[in-house]
């Protein structure tokens, strides 16, 4: 039976999302979105190493483990550590949005330009057709072709919809209100899991008038996941949490629930987490 699993790895800060797709032949396919590993705290790397060991994957084999690695946008808390992860596990494809400034992530682009651990790399936008991951269809909702936000890198975030059977999961990077004002109407009607944008900040969920953006478009009471930033910025914001509580949508947070896994067989959605 086919299955889609999306795991928000608890990296304490930033994002790292493992995507797994089990096809009808019993083969697992892997994708990764972002990491925030530092020299001192290699949360994603350690999680992935243990996870693949549990899956009995031979990491000494030369072939890449990931079918794709995606940098959602060019901020440190989404791109740090990707180089070390790709060095270890390899990827067939490395994708990223266009940006006017790679800044701190230029070293990652340099690595992609010359490493044999990256099969091919290119920028993504919604005009591109992305191959399925196993039996999971992937579509790009954002960014638009050649549309680059020169002032707010968060709004260059790639927004992905993953669909298996009649269920869609949506990954959102740090996209803010400007993005949602353009694509909220395009969110799949069958969205059953939604990664709360920008770690639950106000501008990831509300517009400048205080109106909800993406959440007003979802009707199926989706499971929500937040990669929290409780330290430093107080993300998620209370206003955002109150909105979801009022809607009685199930909400899971990496700071409270540790690693979060959202699973579907194309019909039902289940959530697995480590502790409360």
């Amino acid at each position, binding site marked *: 039976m086919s299955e889609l699993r999306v795991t928000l790895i608890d990296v304490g800060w930033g994002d790292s999302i493992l995507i797994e797709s089990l096809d009808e032949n019993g083969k697992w396919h892997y994708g990764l979105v972002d990491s925030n590993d530092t*020299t001192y705290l290699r949360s994603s790397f350690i999680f992935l190493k243990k996870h693949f060991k549990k899956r009995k994957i031979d990491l000494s084999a030369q072939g890449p483990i990931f079918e794709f690695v995606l940098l959602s946008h060019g901020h*440190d808390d989404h791109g740090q550590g990707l*180089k070390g992860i790709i060095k270890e596990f390899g990827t067939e494809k490395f994708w990223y949005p266009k940006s006017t400034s790679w800044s701190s992530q230029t070293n990652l682009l*340099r690595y992609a330009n010359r490493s044999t651990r990256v099969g091919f790399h290119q920028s993504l936008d919604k005009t*591109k057709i992305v191959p399925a991951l196993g039996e999971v269809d992937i579509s790009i909702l954002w960014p638009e072709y050649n549309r680059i936000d020169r002032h707010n890198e968060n709004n260059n975030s790639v927004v992905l919809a993953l669909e298996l059977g009649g269920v869609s999961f949506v990954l959102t990077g740090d996209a803010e209100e400007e993005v949602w004002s353009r694509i909220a109407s395009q969110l799949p009607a069958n969205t059953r899991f939604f990664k709360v944008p920008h770690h639950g900040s106000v501008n990831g969920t509300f517009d400048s008038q205080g109106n909800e953006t993406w959440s007003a478009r979802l009707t199926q009471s989706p499971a929500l996941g937040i990669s929290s930033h409780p330290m430093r910025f107080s993300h998620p914001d209370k206003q955002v949490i109150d909105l979801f509580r009022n809607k009685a949508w199930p909400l899971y947070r990496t700071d409270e629930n540790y690693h979060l896994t959202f699973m579907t067989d194309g019909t039902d959605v289940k959530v697995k987490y480590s502790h409360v």
Partner: protein
Amino acid sequence: MEDGRAGRTVPLVVDDRKELPEFRMTRLTYFTIESEPGLGGAGREEEKLWNLSNERFQVPFLLNSMSGVILGPVDGSGLFLTAASIEETFDRIEAQPSFYVDANDLWLPNFLFEKMPERGGVYRAGYPLFRQALYFRADMVDHDGFLDMCLELSAQLAYSEGETAAFQSWEAGQIEEAIKNYHDRPEMALKYREE
């Protein structure tokens, strides 16, 4: 590298700036030399003996994972003033078996910056300021204590105009190379939707 500013300061590249009521800080990136565990594995020719020494002692050791902060270019000139000097430094480091260059982040309060820091701008931080920022990043010092320390050390951050231009040129070169790689292998590229 005692002959230039790189001997006393750390280059930092601006990544993002936050202007929240409770958090007014800029995130910056510094580059590190990382090594993979085992340094190439037992019996390999590249497995070398290193020495930790000062005027009073010397300890030989076998390197097994390390991280070091990059201060300046490999030619010892002190500052990264050309894209080529960045490229050569990273190349030379990564030519060592099991060594690679990685990026790490830290935060500095916005009041330390004379003008609004722009993404991609390069600054130099003195060791004491850099050390405090590392402690803050590792939650070893609290927010208010860090701000107090930064006030005392406010003279230890300087904009590096020449290095900003060099890093931007380096970035442009990498983007150009990425575009060339893409065009060299069109059969690998994603197809376009017909809409």
